Every structure is written in C-alpha cells, then in structure tokens.
C-alpha cells in the first residue's frame, strides 16, 4: 500500500466522518391535516386565534364511583407560552346548570415550572350538569377557559 493511497484514504475517511455527522437529514414530518374531521375529533384543538395560554380541564372520578357529578377530581393544566418561568395565578370555579357554585372555588398561584392544578370537588348542590371555569393570569395577561360536563 503506497503512501499516496494511504493519504487519499485518510482524507476520504476524514471527509466522510465529517459528512456522516451531519447525516440523518431525512425530513420526518407528521403533520395532521388541519381540515379533516378525524383530526378535529382527535386533537380537539380549541384555539381560534393565537393563544396566550395553553390549558386543558380534565375531571376524573374514582373507580367504582357513581357515574354522576356528585364527587370528582379536577385536573387543570396550564402553561404561559411567552414565559415558562412566570408564575400563574389561577381561579377554578365550578357552577351547576342553575349557576350555583358546586364546590368551593379554588384560587392560588402556580410557581415557575408548575403547570397542574388539582383538587377534589364534592358537590354541595344538585348537579345535573357542571361548568368548570378556569381563569389564569400571568404577567398581566388573563384568559378564561371553560368546559361543560353532564351527568
């Protein structure tokens, strides 16, 4: 093996190793069509304009509990897009079909990096349907999210 060949080989290997480091260039797109019915049903994307907050309201009941709105757990998530380190003040109010408060309104502040509000709700009034109102404020910006539930 002569020196010229060896030097060429080394140069090729060097160039190849640098190139391979930037390999893995296959684009991997997995973007759902914004207009398909199935997409709408799956993602349930609820923002019609650019949101300041990203939030969701979820309620759970213990396994084996009656399938009604007598007693349930609330899990509300929120993030402030512009600044993930900003504390978020919140208020969670739950009212029934007549507008009566279902269980004590929860208020507090989420520290930086914390995005979950959770508490138990034991209904104080007859509740055939409930509306959860989740009001959030960060850096002077306020937004209200709502979710309805039925028995």
């Amino acid at each position, binding site marked *: 093996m002569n020196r010229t060949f060896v030097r060429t080989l080394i140069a090729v290997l060097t160039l190849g190793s640098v190139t391979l480091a930037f390999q893995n260039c296959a684009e991997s*797109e997995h973007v759902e069509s914004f207009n398909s019915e199935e997409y709408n049903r799956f993602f349930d994307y609820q923002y*019609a*304009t650019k949101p300041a907050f990203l939030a969701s309201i979820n309620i759970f009941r213990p396994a084996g509990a009656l399938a009604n709105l007598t007693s349930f757990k609330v899990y509300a998530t929120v993030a402030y*897009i512009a600044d993930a380190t900003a504390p978020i003040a919140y208020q969670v109010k739950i009212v029934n079909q007549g507008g009566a408060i279902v269980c004590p309104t929860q208020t507090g502040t989420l520290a930086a*990096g914390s995005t979950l509000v959770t508490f138990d709700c034991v209904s104080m009034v007859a509740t055939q349907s409930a509306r959860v109102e989740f009001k959030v404020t960060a850096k002077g910006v306020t937004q209200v999210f709502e979710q309805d*539930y039925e028995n």
Partner: protein
Amino acid sequence: MKLMLGLATILTAISLQARAADLVVDCLYDTASRMPGVLIPFKIKGPLMDTATFSGATVTTNNGADCRILVDPFVKNLFHLKCAEETQVMIQAVAVNNNQAHQVNYGPLSVTLPAGGLTVVKPPTQDPNVILGKSLFGTYCLTCHNPASVKRDRTAAQITGAIKSEDQMKSLTVLTADQINKIAAYLKSL
C-alpha cells in the same frame, strides 16, 4: 496518519456537540400534567432557531398507543403531542436551516393517568365549529355581549349586517366569513 485520524475524531465530536446545543425541545407541561387525552405542548428552540424553520415532528411509543403530533397553527415553533392512552414516547423534531435538516430527539416521556385508579369523565361531544365559535366569541364579542345567551340564535347574516351598520362593531371587519359562521354556530348551540 495518527494526526489525521485524531483530527477526524475531533471534528466529528464537535459537529455532534454543536447540533445538540443549537437545537433543543422543551416540554411546557410538568410531569404530572402529561396525561392521556391532553394536548401536551412542546417548543423547539435554541440558537439555530434564529434562522431555521421548524419542519415537523414524529412520535414513537413503547406500546403502540395512538399518539399524534399537531404543529400549532398560530404559535411559531410550537407543537402538541396527544396520546389516547397511557404510554411512553420518544419524539423526533426537525428544523431546516439553509436547506439542511437538523433533528433533535426528546424523551423518553411518560404519558400517564393520575394515580388511584381514576376514570376520565368525558365532556359531551361538541361540534368543532361550535368550540371554535365559542373561542372567537370570547375574543371578539364577549366584552359587549355578556352573557352570550343574549345573542342566542343570531345568524351569520345578522352578525355580518351588524358589523357593517353598528359603529362599535366596525373593527370586527377583521373577521372572515368562516369565523362569523363559527360564531353563529356557537350562538345557535346556546
């Protein structure tokens, strides 16, 4: 020869490190918030994103769960993960800079239900147009028309007419016909 091989190794290491530092994915929700059925938001960021364009992302799971990625239509460099059931995922996000694709991996990330054998209480299924219409009403109309029920059953034609004739509503000419239709759908649902 040893010098050339050493140089090749150093160059390779530098190139990998630069890619890792220039592009990162950040989950905006804490661990406890990452539940099935929730739109979990992520941001792709780093120095590379000053000039790069977020191309998209893919997700793989450890158990074949139905998980999908949605690129946010309004917020730059933001995408959402939603899984229909509990799972553990790996996400691959791609950004393109000067016609060169750069990929960054995120995970594994666990998507789990709260502990305690809880079952989800599902809200009643709603027409997506009604959901979006409600959001639009909240943004553009609720300040003056609160509660929304005072405008129950207003049609798209009535809303359009009001925007043209009412001085206080003239700023709402920014609304498209599609958006007005969605607002009307929401008002009809009340």
